[in-house]
């Protein structure tokens, strides 16, 4: 196995509310290796997004340490690429201006930035839309811009928080296949939050399941499918069995 690009060492975390504190992580320990595709599932409120907030540096652990590419820094902001739920493009910026945003913030020279963005837009099938505004684009296209923006942050680690939850079923399917193709081509490490067990199975190498609160340990499932994957692979007996187990684990926590 290759080197660990992300490591949580005994990380504890809690949100402080005025009257109480919500314990979410308790001495959590896990590692993610270079080039992996990891999905994270868990009931609503189990702390999936909080994991991402800790990784990006929007929150700091109460104790323990977070290592990115082997380094531990208190200010991690700007060190990973993050693609949020929905697209979150700025409606007042053109597609080009949206994509160039992380480069602008990093202070990359205009010329360099231009080259990178134009290249990226082309690769992602968005050429010709540079001067359009997000409102002119379809949902799938907007997601691709948002992904490009995360990629242009330049980091080898990409965090995707339910990126496809707002897409309709058919568009979602296409985007999943497209995402897999991009990931296979680029070799970045991806952490992917989803509610959809099928999606997790279809995309990832390993699945992390959050079941308890506070989370002491991530349950982990290695997906028994080879790549490249097809939708029909999801119907293989070992996969359907894993799927039922995953759903069972999640259902324990459901209440309407």
């Amino acid at each position: 196995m290759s080197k660990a690009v992300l490591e949580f060492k005994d990380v504890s975390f809690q949100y402080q509310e005025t009257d109480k504190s919500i314990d979410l992580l308790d001495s959590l320990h896990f590692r993610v290796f270079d080039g992996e595709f990891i999905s994270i599932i868990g009931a609503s409120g189990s702390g999936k997004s909080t994991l991402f907030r800790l990784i990006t540096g929007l929150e700091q652990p109460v104790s323990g340490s977070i290592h990115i590419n082997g380094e531990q820094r208190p200010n991690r902001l700007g060190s990973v690429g993050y693609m949020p739920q929905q697209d979150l493009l700025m409606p007042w910026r053109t597609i080009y201006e949206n994509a160039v945003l992380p480069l602008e913030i990093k202070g990359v020279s205009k010329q360099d930035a231009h080259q990178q963005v134009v290249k990226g837009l082309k690769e992602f099938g968005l050429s010709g839309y540079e001067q359009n505004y997000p409102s002119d684009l379809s949902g799938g296209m907007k997601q691709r811009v948002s992904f490009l923006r995360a990629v242009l942050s330049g980091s080898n680690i990409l965090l995707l928080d339910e990126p496809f939850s707002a897409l309709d079923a058919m568009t979602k399917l296409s985007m999943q296949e497209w995402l897999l193709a991009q990931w296979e081509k680029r070799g970045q490490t991806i952490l992917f939050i989803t509610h959809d067990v099928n999606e997790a199975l279809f995309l990832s190498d390993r699945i992390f399941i959050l079941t308890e609160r506070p989370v002491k340990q991530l349950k982990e499932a290695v997906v028994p499918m080879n790549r490249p994957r097809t939708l029909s692979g999801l119907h293989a007996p070992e996969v359907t069995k894993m799927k039922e187990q995953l759903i069972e684990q999640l259902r324990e926590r459901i209440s309407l």
Partner: protein
Amino acid sequence: MRNYLPSILLIAVFVIVWEVGARIVNTEFILPAPSGIGLKLWDLKGLLLKEHLTSTLLIIVIGLAISIVLGIALAITMTQSSVMEKTFYPIIITSQTIPIIALAPIFVLWFGYSIWSKVVVTILITFFPITVSTYDGLRSSSKELKELLLTMGASKKDIFFKLDVPSAIPYFFSGMKVAVPLSVIGAAIGEWLGAQEGLGYFSRRMMTQFDGAGVFAPIVILSLLGIIFFLIVIMFEKKALKWRK
């Protein structure tokens, strides 16, 4: 244009009824006929446009400019410092329920018949919508986008200029669309209370002359002024918000 036909028709009917009514009543100083107002406008166009319009315009422009500068400055201060916000926001909101404008007569004592007594009235009447809308706009920027920018390593300055300011612009224009017609009213009210020139002053003065058409003529110009200012704001808004479909 087709859409406005019923409105235009109604206005036309109204003007005709007014004209006929005015001719029947036949006391020009109580109810001048629209034709009489038109003629008066034509007669006085030089005087009204050159002298009085210039004077009123100056009040409006200075008043609005000060309101915009102060309003934006205060709105920014309030979004940047929570102490300032806690201190000023309740006062600004409460002040809106206070008829400060009723203090206008005393401004004449403080500022005399200079332009400032009228500018202050204009500021008082336009400051609130500009400040509150700009403030609400700066606050409206999405928390998600802000966090996204932070994950990119954005500084406070980046967030202000790349997120807060663009988010505030539509709100600012809403505020301006309220403030601009109010500024015309403010200038006119200011001029009632103490002036030697200006359209509001002229109108009021014509009352003492029993010149009904003379009362209405400057108000027609004030109205056009209000409409033109409004259209200018809309024009800038369209330009600034061309990303809106």
